[in-house]
């Protein structure tokens, strides 16, 4: 089992979940985050004090998948998250972490059953 973390643009969230639905991945967790990356931000100014920052708004997805779902999941995210055909800086990243176990709280199912 894998724990997939993807950082995407906020406005692509719906298209990513749409793509995920297509490959039957319909459980996930979403949260707003800020990202530093290749895509640069801008100087900020507060009460006449200048700050060098470049945090941009992003969305983080977390998806626990069984191994056979990993490849389709990644593909679906990529498809949904790209701004255009060739992709643009800032479109985001996907991280794949190992996952030892899952427990579904209501039923106490564990392992790949529970995902």
């Amino acid at each position, binding site marked *: 089992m894998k724990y997939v973390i993807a950082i995407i*643009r*906020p*406005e*692509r*969230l*719906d*298209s990513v979940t749409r793509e995920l639905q297509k490959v039957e991945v319909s459980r996930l967790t979403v949260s707003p985050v800020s990202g530093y990356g290749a*895509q640069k*931000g*801008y*100087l*900020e*100014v*507060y009460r006449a004090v*200048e700050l060098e920052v470049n*945090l*941009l*708004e992003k969305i983080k997805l977390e998806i626990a998948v069984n191994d056979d779902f990993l490849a389709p999941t990644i593909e679906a995210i990529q498809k949904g998250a790209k*701004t255009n055909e060739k992709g643009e800086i*800032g479109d985001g990243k996907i991280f794949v972490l190992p996952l030892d176990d899952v427990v579904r709280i209501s039923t106490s199912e564990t392992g790949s059953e529970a995902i």
Partner: protein
Amino acid sequence: MAIVFADTAWVLISSALVLFMLPGLALFYGGMVRRKNVLSSMMHSFVVMGIVAVLWVVVGYSLAFSEGNWFVGGLDHIFLWGIDYNSTTGTIPTYAFVAFQGMFAIITPALISGAVVGRIKFKSYIAFITLWSLIVYAPVCHWVWGGGFLTGEALDFAGGTVVHITSGISALAILVFLGKRKGYGVDVIKPHNVTLTLIGTGLLWFGWFGFNAGSALAANEIAALAFITTFVAPAAAGLSWMTAEWWGTGRPTALGFATGILAGLVAITPAAGFVTPMAALAIGVVAGVVCYNAVMLKGKLGYDDSLDVFGVHGVGGTAGALLTGVFATVGAAGLISGNSHQFFLQFEGVVITMVYAIVCTIGIGFVLDKTLGLKVSVSEENIGLDQTQHGEKGYNF
């Protein structure tokens, strides 16, 4: 003529109420954009308070209200020359009149900003507002209220034509140069904070009592009439929008109800002191349904009037102007009093204003686009205008 203290008090508090609509508008619009554009959107309303207030006392008031020709006022009162604290206009000090009218000059261009959020350069926005105030607002204000060729013809109690039609149609016109936001129609762009929009709606309605009832320029029975119509019409419009939406989508949304209230406020504006409360009820119901459908249509036509300035102010303002020609019974006569000529005059006023506003706005847009450039780069749009235009963020940890 000596001033009447009660009228002075009423116009002063009304002026304050109208200025209070600007933070209201900032919230109304600011809640509907994404987080990354919230300050930019709010600044669109705030900075107009700075620019147009100064413009108004320097030259705008004179262009709109000093004696001139059929088209525009003269320069007799630039820098408020010839006016001092003892000057009067009607039963109030002229300074009160200047301030009250200045508030209208401020809110009108600010309304346009709802169409251009998320993609206009800040410096170009400032230039646009400045030019538009002088080229579009001041003359149209002169036409209708300042002694120009529509004065005494088209009925416009508190600015249906002067304020809402000019801004609504100009919002549409400027999109010729600004196009759509990136991802519009593909990605879903949701309001980042609907509670802000609701607070904004509250401020707007509150302030609108000053806008409409203050336009009586006296604390008299016409003010009371304008007050109660401004109370009834938005209530009815909120309900009719909500009903249309409930019917159409199965969901009565808070955002829809708020937008309906706004549509009702817009539509009753030209009529406020001319119609009975029951006519206001009718105007409200019509405005809610008509504007709802206008906003629906946008999706089909595919232009990106981001926060529906045209659908609400353009369409609502037009509906209101025409319905004023239908329902006017107090101090004027409309269609239901058998005066079809008034309806024609209303129609004429709407069309002339629309044409003029479109032509000028496109002209201004063209010049700015060629010089300063109107639209930010794709990358700036992606990052958001708060960071790229203002160097700050709405929310920090």
